[in-house]
């Protein structure tokens, strides 16, 4: 008589999404939809030059515009000790520039007015006099002797270098290279990209002098971290700060950092004593908020003739822009770059990294990526591709020789991660079968004879998702755990809150499914709330595919603790001892007498009306979950393309994605995540990048220059699944949101390279726009995205 799990919308049900009910009616509530009484509007004046000393700022004409209430500059901020703020990587970032501007788009002044049109008008009347300084737009220029010093505001910062960092076994790796039969090398640029959620960033700060309470509606993926940051920056007591992250129009990592606009709107509200709304326009979003990537990746691999990898070396040079504001665990300077090659059995590895300041917007956010894992896996799979070619080995065969075998788990990677589960070779087999790998070479030969260029590209990876365990992962010292609070009402309905924050991932739907799975309460009877720091338990937010691995686990644990209490109530109701109670989904019964039982709803009512003597009333739990390890999903992607030799245009003929993200809570939503991620991967491989000219002008500051794929060019994807449950996650799930963005780009690039490398070309840097592919075909030479600055 247990309930049918699929019928109640439990685990494994492709339950239609609850949040859709408002979105399809146009009733979503995004920050810009919130209107507060007496609300003023803020506009930011941004620097139009990339590196210049500020000689003067004249705001007098702006003050004259009717309807203007306040004009703020760096000077006003500095008077309140708010001109600078800390970043998530222990650096500082200017809120409003005081001394000089360090990138085009940097915040210089702000106008607060009765409506946004007036604020824009007044911004245009502010006159800033600049004195030009030499502009640095790449690490080569930053490292050059005598280069202009970007961060002259900092003590002990004599150069533009931010850090040198290393990890791994240098001596062991050197030995591996001495023993190698073949050494393969690769030199890549992973260009700057912007996550570009459709909704830009914004906030509404509402300070109430009477109560001392500051409420901020904000586009943030991590409301509790923001609360801590605001407490720190604005020196307000944490209990008087309420951050509300309402519906978010996408995030993809762009909405993790603290942005100057948020801080300015807060000060503006404190000064005007009215709510102040700031909504960034698209250009502001693209030129000033968190970029991803912008890394130079150099690698070498030591190989034995039979295809066995003996060791690998990697060096990264990263361009962080003017402020080091990477959102990443404290311990690691270049994120989890050292997760590279985690799915392969590599005996020795060594990674060195150098980071530089440049006159570009602060970058290094994890754009749909678990802290630089996208770069790590792109490097890995381009390195694998080059190595297989250098060995004269088949791409799939080379990978299968070196992939970690099922019986090797738990497996300690060369950089020290512990991977714990997977069926890598099975995923390979499923993918090879689906794409028709066995007959492809013949097909490719035949096509070539007729002048057609076909190629197949493979990308496989396991990535570290779900930071963290708190031993190793923290941001600004705050340990990376997460939380859930489950309250079951007397009628058996429930409310669940977590410290995560959905941005389209469907938490309102899937969290309820986990509770349904654990308690047998229909998912429709559970409402899920996130994003309000006054009501949700403390959590680190949603990014790095950490919600299901961490907050999702907390949901399961909270539900289990509720069930444990309900069991005691059941024993009381059934008048037997607790040891004689059995559980089936939705119901407790007496061992040996299946008919004698009570439902979870009966227990909920009793928790409020008939609890055992001495028991605390109510039925609820708050759980904080600190995962023992990361989760390790696996992906094997196979892409088949045709390159048009006359134009350099390439079309995806077929794309097979095999994902093993452990147990799937809602298969429909998992597939949606994979398809969305693959599309971003396709975008980065094909068109989506942001570059800068010599003067530091951002090329890609709007959607006419920054190309995003539409329905027309985006290919279709064929999805397959393999399920290897995560051994330590309460419901066996692993992260999935970012797998496709991480593993995808190399599949596209490897496919195009496979189609044209008979011409001698080894590499074209992303994006593989037709002109780059055409140039490679014409010259037989590699096409690099590295300096000198390339502006298409």
């Amino acid at each position: 008589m247990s309930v049918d799990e699929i019928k109640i919308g439990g685990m494994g049900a492709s339950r239609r999404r609850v949040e859709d009910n408002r979105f399809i009616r146009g009733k979503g509530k995004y920050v810009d939809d919130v209107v507060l009484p007496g609300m003023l509007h803020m506009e930011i004046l941004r620097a139009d030059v990339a590196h210049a000393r500020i000689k003067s700022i004249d705001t007098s004409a702006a003050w004259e515009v009717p309807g203007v209430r306040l004009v703020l500059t760096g000077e006003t901020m500095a008077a309140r000790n708010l001109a600078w703020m800390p970043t998530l990587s222990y650096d500082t970032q200017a809120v409003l520039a005081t001394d000089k501007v360090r990138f085009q788009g940097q915040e210089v002044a702000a106008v607060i007015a009765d409506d946004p049109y007036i604020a824009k008008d007044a911004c245009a009347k502010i006159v800033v006099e600049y004195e030009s300084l030499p502009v640095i737009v790449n690490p080569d220029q930053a490292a050059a002797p005598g280069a202009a010093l970007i961060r002259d505001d900092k003590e002990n910062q004599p150069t533009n270098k931010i850090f040198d960092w290393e990890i791994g076994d240098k001596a062991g790796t050197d030995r591996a290279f001495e023993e190698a039969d073949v050494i393969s090398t690769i030199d890549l640029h992973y260009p700057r990209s912007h996550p570009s959620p459709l909704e830009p960033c914004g906030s509404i700060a509402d300070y109430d002098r009477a109560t001392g309470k500051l409420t901020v509606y904000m586009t943030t993926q991590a409301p509790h971290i923001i609360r801590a940051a605001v407490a720190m920056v604005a020196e307000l007591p944490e209990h008087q700060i309420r951050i509300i992250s309402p519906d978010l129009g996408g995030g993809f990592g762009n909405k993790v950092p603290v942005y100057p606009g948020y801080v300015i709107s807060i000060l503006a509200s404190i000064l005007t004593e009215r709510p102040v709304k700031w909504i960034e326009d698209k250009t502001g979003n693209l030129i000033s908020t968190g970029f991803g990537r912008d890394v130079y990746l150099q690698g070498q691999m030591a190989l034995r003739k039979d295809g066995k990898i003996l060791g690998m070396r990697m060096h990264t040079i990263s361009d962080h822009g003017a402020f080091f504001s990477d959102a990443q665990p404290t311990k690691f300077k270049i994120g989890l770059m050292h997760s590279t090659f985690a799915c392969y059995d590599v005996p020795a590895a060594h990674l060195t990294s150098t980071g530089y300041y440049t006159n570009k917007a602060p970058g290094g956010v994890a754009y749909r990526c678990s802290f630089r894992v996208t770069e790590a896996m792109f490097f890995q799979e381009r390195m694998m591709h080059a190595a297989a070619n250098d060995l004269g080995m088949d791409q799939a065969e080379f990978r299968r020789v070196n992939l970690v075998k099922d019986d090797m788990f738990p497996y300690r990677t060369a950089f020290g991660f512990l991977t714990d589960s997977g069926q890598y070779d099975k995923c390979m087999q499923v993918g090879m079968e689906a794409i028709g790998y066995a007959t492809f070479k013949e097909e490719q030969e035949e096509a070539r004879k007729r002048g057609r260029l076909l190629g197949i590209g493979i990308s496989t990876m396991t990535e570290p998702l779900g930071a963290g365990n708190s031993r190793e992962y923290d941001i600004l010292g705050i340990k990376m755990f997460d939380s859930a609070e489950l309250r079951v009402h007397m009628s058996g309905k429930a409310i669940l809150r977590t410290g995560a924050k959905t941005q389209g991932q469907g938490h309102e739907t899937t969290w309820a499914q986990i509770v349904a799975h654990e308690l047998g309460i229909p998912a429709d009877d559970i409402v899920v709330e996130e994003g309000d720091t006054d009501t949700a338990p403390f959590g680190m937010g949603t990014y790095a595919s950490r919600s299901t691995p961490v907050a999702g686990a907390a949901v399961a644990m909270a539900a289990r603790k509720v069930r444990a209490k309900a069991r005691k109530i059941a024993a009381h109701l059934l008048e037997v001892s607790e040891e004689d109670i059995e559980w089936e989904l939705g119901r407790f019964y007496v061992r040996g007498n299946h008919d004698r039982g009570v439902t979870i709803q009966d227990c909920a009512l009793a928790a409020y009306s008939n609890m055992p003597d001495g028991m605390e009333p109510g039925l609820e739990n708050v759980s904080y979950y600190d995962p023992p390890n990361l989760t390790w999903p696996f992906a094997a992607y196979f892409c088949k393309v045709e390159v048009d030799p006359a134009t350099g245009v390439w079309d995806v003929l077929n794309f097979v994605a095999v994902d093993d993200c452990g147990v799937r809570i809602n298969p429909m939503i998992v597939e949606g995540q994979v398809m969305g991620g693959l599309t971003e991967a396709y975008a980065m491989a094909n068109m989506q990048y942001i570059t800068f000219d010599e003067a530091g002008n951002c090329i890609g500051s709007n959607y006419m220059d920054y190309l995003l794929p539409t329905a027309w060019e985006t290919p279709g994807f064929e999805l397959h699944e393999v399920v290897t449950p995560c051994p330590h996650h309460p419901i066996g799930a692993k992260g999935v949101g970012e797998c496709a963005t991480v593993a995808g780009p190399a599949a596209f690039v490897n496919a195009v390279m496979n189609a044209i490398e008979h011409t001698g070309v080894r590499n074209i840097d992303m994006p593989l726009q037709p002109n780059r592919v055409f140039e490679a075909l014409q010259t037989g030479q590699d096409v690099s995205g590295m300096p000198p600055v390339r502006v298409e």
Partner: protein
Amino acid sequence: MTSLYNEVAADPGADVPTRRVSISVNGEKRTVDVEPRLLLAHLLRQGLGLTGTHTGCDTTNCGACTVLFDGRPIKSCTMLAVQADGHEVETVEGLASASELHPIQEGFKECHGLQCGYCTPGMMMATKALLEKNPDPTEDEVRWALSGNLCRCTGYQNIVKSVLWAAEKMRGDEGEEA
């Protein structure tokens, strides 16, 4: 009934010219005084409180602000409110009746055609224009008709499925009525 526009005019220091326009919005005649420079998207959102129409890019690329203008899909961030004087505008709020969802709305939910929901109203309005012209589109025709609308979450595959699902449902509904 509006605040933004009246308030500007009421400011003692301001001498802002306004123009009276009448627009049929979701079948209801709305008469407002607006600054000539006011964008239609902003009139809908801030003036009329119809926040289902979103603005994403400000440059007519993303299509989140798509509404129907005399039945044709247009991007309301690139039309002035005064240009809509005397015309009919239909927004996402006009899709469903009090009791029933439009088949397009059902299709998007049924086929998981949305994630964050920000592009969805524009996608659905562009879909409505397509299906009114072409009740039985091919996949390519759907992709082409929606190529002025960006989605950052879904990868479009499920959006296409949603549109085809809705088209089939609408043809079925019409069949029943006949």
